[in-house]
């Protein structure tokens, strides 16, 4: 948790405080970028861009929002921009089909996924589902914090999260099947 005094010092023009603040958050920023973009180099670029943006806009932060959600909002926005530029949007319908399929085979999808597979599965989620999952599991955000960060209604956050989990399950199940057959 970033100390409020440090944030205020940074906002009032204390450059050292601002640098300290950036050092405190840089790993969180990078982690989000890494899992959303699923690429080390892109993650490095995006998180540096995010840190520079935080550096220049620290005055615009208002305490009514949590600092970590403000930071993550900046990172996710940058990542989603990059993400959109890098690849065409994957339609949700594509996953609806998989979603239907999961009910039958859920028992085969159990605990043996590799982290690599999960990363790959996350990478196949649509941008907002992906962001929600990353914030929920890699930043340990609550519904409210995700809602604040992504500027989405609470119910939307929930439905995205539920759906993302179902989709991940399906994707991972497909991998499992592929792994077995392959």
């Amino acid at each position, binding site marked *: 948790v970033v100390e409020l005094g440090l944030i205020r010092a940074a906002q009032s023009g204390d*450059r050292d405080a601002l640098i300290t603040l950036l050092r405190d958050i840089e790993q969180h920023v*990078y982690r989000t970028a890494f899992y959303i973009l699923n690429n080390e180099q892109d993650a490095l670029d995006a998180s540096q861009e995010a840190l520079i943006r935080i550096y220049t806009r620290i005055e615009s932060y208002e305490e009514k929002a949590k600092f970590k959600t403000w930071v993550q909002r900046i990172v996710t926005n940058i990542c989603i921009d990059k993400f959109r530029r890098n690849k065409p949007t994957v339609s949700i319908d594509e996953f609806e089909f998989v979603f239907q399929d999961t009910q039958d085979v859920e028992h085969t999808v159990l*605990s043996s996924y590799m982290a690599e597979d999960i990363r790959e599965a996350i990478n196949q989620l649509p941008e907002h589902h992906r962001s929600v999952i990353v914030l929920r599991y890699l930043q340990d955000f609550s519904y409210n914090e995700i809602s604040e960060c992504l500027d989405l209604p609470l119910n939307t956050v929930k439905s995205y999260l539920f759906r993302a*989990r179902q989709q991940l399950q399906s994707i991972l199940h497909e991998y499992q099947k592929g792994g077995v057959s392959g």
Partner: protein
Amino acid sequence: MRCSLAIESIHRYLDNDLSEEEVSDMLGHISGCQECAEAFRTLKALTQELAELPLVVPKYSLVDAIMPQLDALDRARLEEVASEERQSAEMIPVTHINDRKKRVFTTSVTRMMIGVAAAVGILGIAIYNYSPQQLSDAQVQYNEQATTSAESNATGEAKSMKTGAGYGDANDSGAVADEEKSSSPMMKEEDDSQLLDSTPVEQETSPTSPEKSEMQKNTETDKSSAQLKSDKQVVSPDSPSLKKENPSPAKSEEIQETTTQDLNPSADVMMTQTESPDSLDSTVEADTPVDKQASELSEESTIDPVPNNKRIMSAITGFSSEAATLSDEKSVALSLDSPDGTMSVVVEKQKLVVYRLPVGRESEKVAIQSIELVGTWVIGEWALDSTVFTYQLDLNGKVSVYTYPIHAATVTTP
């Protein structure tokens, strides 16, 4: 609990969003529902996997990596601030320029006001001198008739004038009226020939005089004379004539001399044609009975207008001399005392001398400082608290504002 609701509860449970009661409800449903129990297991496993995802860290310090960029940003920001400061510093003279423009505007306005006041003064004096005639009852409608008939007939057609006595008189007076209306565009020909030049008037009087005398014989009745008077009265309020006739007293005197020598009503007629309404008044009166009387009256009339004109002229010259002294004061010596009476500033030919006025035992004012004035003096004034004297100088059309702070005793220029 339905299965769909149970699945949602499982999700919320995994997100720590269920109350204890809801948890027990969910667990109750799972214990009885095989499908939901299976879903619970898989989702819980997935959540655990997700929660155990490696907390990746960047392979180098991102803040260190962006430091050069942050420094560059700071430099850019500083330059921006500096340029803003420069801009704001540059803004000051700009506002001053605006200020100056304003002041120039106001001074030019005040100059204009002085000019207007002068014009009003001259006009006022002139109007004052003509007031007796203006008071006479003006039959405007009749005058219009007379002038229009004069327009059509009196433009030099002698034949029509001869036709009838009353008509001829009407024409005559109408012509006079139009001549009086020297500025009216309707009678341009007569304006040119009779009013503006004194010589053509004299030339014209000789041919008209026989006509006039002839007319006189015809029109020696009371009726016609009365008509004439009324005409004249109508004519007289014509104020535009004042302007043209006032500045030419010499001319009118000259004309009067020639006309009085000529005697006879013709002279009178000529006078009415050329003279100011004052002389017109007397000459028309003289028109009526006997020639001798007429000449006498015309003599009177020659006396009458001259002082009038002289008065006007003296008023004019008085004003001009006044104006001259005003301008002299401006350029040569202008003394301005401070509001509290302790200081005085005297403008003497390209120099601004600041004096301290005598206080108590001191008998003479003491010069404190003399400042060379670069440019022409425009205006100066003391601040209300007498601490600062502000003045404006005109140098090649540009007005600069200078202030003289009494205590600092230095001249600052913006």
